[in-house]
């Protein structure tokens, strides 16, 4: 049985939400999804200087155990179909960070015949990190943004569809 929407909103649920969000954002496991040039910067970000470990982030080899997909690099059309498949294999809740110009919008490779101009054509994206490739600092900033987004989410009491429509 899911806890989502099972209790009325009150101070307690807000606090529980905060606790849940805090635990989730502090152990973001990301799937190793280095596609191209950005993968090297992703590796360096995981390396000793930028050190993603301090945010509780650890690389995972499989989508089944990861919360976050960092799409690092050029997404070709051949790979785009697989990317969708991998995204669907990740358990909820899941997040996507699009790293670098290529996965944001095609970047330099907009001129190419075989490149999917932007990963958002295939899967939903939470944070876009600009750069070609982004520096480790830029990626870290993007991930902190994502953590901020995660910490504002509500799980126990979610607005209903009508309420959400009203709010937006």
């Amino acid at each position, binding site marked *: 049985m899911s806890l989502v929407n099972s209790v009325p909103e009150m101070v307690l649920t807000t606090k529980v939400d905060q606790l849940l969000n805090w635990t989730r954002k502090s152990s973001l496991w990301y799937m190793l999804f280095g596609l191209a040039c950005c993968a090297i910067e992703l590796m360096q970000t995981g390396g000793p200087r930028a050190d993603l470990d301090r945010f509780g982030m650890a690389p995972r080899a499989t989508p089944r155990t990861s919360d976050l997909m960092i799409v690092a690099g050029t997404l070709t059309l051949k790979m785009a179909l697989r990317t969708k498949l991998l995204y669907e294999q990740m358990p909820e809740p899941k997040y996507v960070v699009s790293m670098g110009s290529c996965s944001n919008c095609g970047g330099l490779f907009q001129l190419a015949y*075989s490149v999917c101009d932007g990963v958002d054509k295939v899967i939903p994206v939470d944070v876009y990190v600009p750069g070609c490739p982004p520096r480790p600092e830029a990626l870290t900033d993007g991930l902190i943004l994502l953590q901020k987004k995660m910490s504002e989410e509500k799980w126990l009491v979610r607005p209903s569809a009508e309420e959400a429509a009203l709010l937006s």
Partner: protein
Amino acid sequence: MAGAAECGGGSVALVELSRVERDMEIAAIRRLLHDKLGAAVGVVEEGPHYESIRIDDDAVERAAMLLRDTPELRFDCLSNLSGCDYPGRGAIDIVYDLYSYEFDRSLVLRVSTRRGDPLVDSVERVWPAANWLEREVFDLLGVRFRGHSDLRRILLPEDWVGHPLRKDYVEPEQYHGISTVRESMLGIRSGS
């Protein structure tokens, strides 16, 4: 390191000398091939940067075998195999860049094939390196290789339509429902 700055002029003279030697060699190699293969071996084509020997598309494998196995030549390495589309003269050229580790010598072979039905002998049995290089040319230019063991697309997906490095290739609007066009902020339509 003293005197390093002066040796620029010397190296140019060295290049000129080896160029003369190479000219003699390529004529000799062409003669050798012509003796064995007859009219299938064409002329030595002069270019501004190197010369090449033209070969008929159905004699490439035999020529390659000769070039590899003749003890004075021993071209044991296929360094590069490229294709280039020339719609103007209705041909696709395949350029073989051979190299001999033993004699430190390069040779360029050139094969022309009709653009409508491009078909060239495979040299895979001579140099295994040709397997993937020929698959790449098949994938991107649509040239078929006679006698290739596994001629299928290598870089593009199996269900891709067309051969993109042809000059008249039209880029697809979409692939499996993913559109390949994104309106650019600069006003340049991608893929154009």
